């Protein structure tokens, strides 16, 4: 009887939703094949974990460089390669080239693609213009792959810096279609000076991209395109009228309660939401069972909080949306009324873990603001919110009833006011962690998190908005967190209890994505250029190798002809390279002061290389 009812219900669903396509079989299936690395996050849960164990705790010390590949591009190299069958796809910073390398043939180049032709991007803007509105270096975080459901025999998706989404034939590199999402140019209020750095995200028959530009007064959005032809399926803005945000005021919830009508408009002064920021450029996840996609939104614009009173909804928010319609199921705003540039864009890791003794379908998020959040990913209930660096001081704690951080007046740049230098705020604007993604091992049940350990002074002041120009309005001075000289830590985190298990100090911010494996080994890279392998349980160092340049890319692993390979892009840059190249403080060593002066440019120089190791 029960099964008949179920069957009837299923058929009702079939009739009611004739247009709904089945899940993307190819990616759902192949994300479980450890021989490949089919999406930037490893799998739809963003675990960055591999079941391969040929390289393991016992033998990782004997790792050797197998081969490497120069991208021919300077500037910061974030992200990492995809491995589909025996083809490896790797991207570069601006001009956003893509290379397909043949693993069967000593990594010979099958094809290469360059979206910039004659110095001009597909949007019609020059490369020079696009570079000039990149917030923090020319970075790009990688390409996505799809097969079937409109993507044919295989399509590579590239989100170029000029905001153009480009579909390439995976076999030949030929363009299938391209569509410019926003506008890197000038003159368009709330749109101009937008750029693209985040990965495309494939779900079923659609591919989605976010947008960057919160430092330029862009009102950002998440947009899904149909893979078949590049037509737009839906767009959801981070702020504005309900219709623009694709919310249902009665059903979309925040802290388990409906958000109500005009939830965003009521939280901004006047029309400031039109230039409100809320960029989306991190790493995304999809729970196919719940059929929800997850991403985070960035800072409200400008950096001067005094001029934009209100909660500035829904900047700084974790969003859960239906991938077919875009309608939001739940939001959680981590930093209402941001006063420090704590973007909420970092990766969303989906893990079925015990939270305070109870099994949960959880979402774990390490935010720029220094708190690590564990949510019920189905309902949006806040389960855990704890500091993952003890120096975090801008808020004492998160009130678990309201979800609000309890802000300390002394570190509130709005409370201190315009033209006042608020000092000693931890973390700095680059956060306790930026986009560099953490890894989760279902085997050890531990989250491995690359972090920054930097504090700041912040002084807001008044600026004018001109479409297409920077719109910042605050000064920053960053320095090492008090009591030490290390600018980073690599930590192990228990997301069920909200506790640091162990922490490895690093001289510089750890700006590379981590990788955990079934070989009980965890990999990460450092800004000086060291590739490191550590014991997944104890954190003990097992292997260190100095690459050609500082590492801000993410580690990946795959298997080819029976051999496991580990790879990472080196190529220093990004916000870390900009902030730390010359060091953070005056060299006062001669005065006998604590030697906090560390200049990254004494350790490493530019240049993109894909490094590949095997036993």
């Amino acid at each position, binding site marked *: 009887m029960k099964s008949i009812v179920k069957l009837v219900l299923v058929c009702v669903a079939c009739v009611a939703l004739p247009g709904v396509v089945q899940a993307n079989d190819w990616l759902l299936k192949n994300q479980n094949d450890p021989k490949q690395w089919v999406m930037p996050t490893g799998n739809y849960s963003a675990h960055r974990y591999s079941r391969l164990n040929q390289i393991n705790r016992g033998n990782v010390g004997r790792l050797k460089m197998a081969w490497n590949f120069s991208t021919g591009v300077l500037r910061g190299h974030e992200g990492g390669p995809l491995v589909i069958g025996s083809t490896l796809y790797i991207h570069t910073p601006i001009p956003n080239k893509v290379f397909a390398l043949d693993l069967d043939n000593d990594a010979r180049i099958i094809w290469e693609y360059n979206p910039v032709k004659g110095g001009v991007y597909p949007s019609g803007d020059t490369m020079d213009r696009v570079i000039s509105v990149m917030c*923090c270096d020319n970075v790009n975080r990688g390409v996505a792959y799809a097969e079937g459901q409109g993507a044919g025999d295989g399509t590579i998706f590239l989100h170029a810096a000029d905001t153009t989404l480009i579909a390439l034939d995976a076999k030949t590199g030929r363009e299938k279609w391209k569509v410019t999402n926003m506008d890197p140019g000038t003159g368009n209020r709330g749109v101009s000076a937008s750029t693209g750095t985040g990965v495309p995200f494939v779900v079923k028959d659609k591919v989605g991209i976010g947008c960057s530009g919160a430092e330029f007064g862009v009102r950002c959005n998440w947009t899904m395109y149909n893979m078949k032809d590049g037509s737009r399926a839906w767009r959801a803005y981070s702020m504005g009228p309900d219709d623009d945000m694709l919310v249902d005021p009665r059903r979309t919830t925040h802290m388990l309660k409906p958000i109500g009508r005009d939830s965003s408009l009521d939280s901004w002064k006047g029309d400031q939401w039109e230039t409100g920021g809320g960029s989306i450029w991190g790493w995304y996840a999809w729970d196919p069972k719940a059929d929800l996609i997850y991403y985070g939104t960035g800072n409200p614009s400008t950096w001067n909080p005094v001029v934009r009173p209100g909660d500035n909804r829904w900047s700084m928010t974790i969003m859960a949306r239906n991938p077919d319609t875009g309608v939001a199921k739940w939001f959680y705003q981590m930093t209402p009324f941001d006063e420090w540039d704590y973007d909420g864009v970092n990766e969303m890791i989906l893990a079925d873990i015990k939270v305070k003794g109870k099994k949960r379908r959880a979402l774990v998020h390490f935010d720029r603001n220094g708190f690590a959040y564990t949510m019920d990913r189905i309902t949006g209930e806040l389960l855990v919110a704890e500091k993952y660096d003890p120096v975090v001081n801008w808020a004492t704690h998160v009130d678990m009833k309201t979800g609000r951080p309890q802000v300390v007046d002394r570190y509130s740049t709005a409370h201190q006011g315009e033209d006042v230098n608020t*000092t000693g705020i931890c973390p700095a604007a680059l956060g306790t962690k930026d986009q560099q993604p953490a890894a989760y091992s279902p085997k050890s049940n531990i989250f491995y998190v690359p972090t920054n350990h930097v504090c700041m002074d912040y*002084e807001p002041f008044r600026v*004018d908005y*001109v479409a297409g120009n920077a719109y910042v309005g605050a*000064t920053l001075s960053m320095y090492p967190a008090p009591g030490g000289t290390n600018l980073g830590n690599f930590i192990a985190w228990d997301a069920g209890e909200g506790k640091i298990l162990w922490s490895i100090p690093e001289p510089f911010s750890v700006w590379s994505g981590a990788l955990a494996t079934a070989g009980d080994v965890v990999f990460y890279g450092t800004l000086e250029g060291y590739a490191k392998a550590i014991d997944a349980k104890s954190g003990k160092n097992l292997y260190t190798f100095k690459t050609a340049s500082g590492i801000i890319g993410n580690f990946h692993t795959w298997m080819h002809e029976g051999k496991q390979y580990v790879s990472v892009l080196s190529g220093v840059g990004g916000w870390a390279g900009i902030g730390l*190249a010359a060091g*953070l403080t005056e060299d006062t060593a*001669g005065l006998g002061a604590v030697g906090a002066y560390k200049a990254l440019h004494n350790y490493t120089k530019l240049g993109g290389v894909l490094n590949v190791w095997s036993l």
Partner: protein
Amino acid sequence: MLKKWMYTLVLTVLGASLAYAADNRPPGVPAQYDDDDNPTYYYALGDSGNVLYYEGEGENRKPVYGWMDFATYRGWRTYHAECHVCHGPDAAGSTFAPALKDSLDYLDWEKFSDLIVNGKTEAQGAQVGNAMPAFGNNPNVMRDLENLYRYVRMRHEGKLRRGPRPPKLAKVEEVDE
């Protein structure tokens, strides 16, 4: 045309012999120009507890206390809002763009201001794979164009330390003649 005040670096050096108490900050001065009409900075020395710059090397390195003028402070502020995201903190350079404190070796006021107004492409000599934006239409930069030069010049000439906000003299309104 702005009225030019007769404060010069000579006066600054004289000021060095005066010691002000922490609560005895000297009065502010208007924006300064050098003998060739180029924007320049001003500072007054005194034991405010605030380090303005360091002099000497190694064992002989010692802090010098004082205050910078408000116009140059505005340059510091605009630099750290608009320029540091590429050129790094304290005009000290980054992996992305050159150290402007050193660029003044070959950039005079005219070239410096022209670059900020009009930008520079790779073809015009920007770093490989890079470009300098044109800020000519950005009022937040243009209103502090001279002050940016004052600040970078002060860093170039070693009269301003790195790090958190430097101590400043009071604001003085400029008077049009």
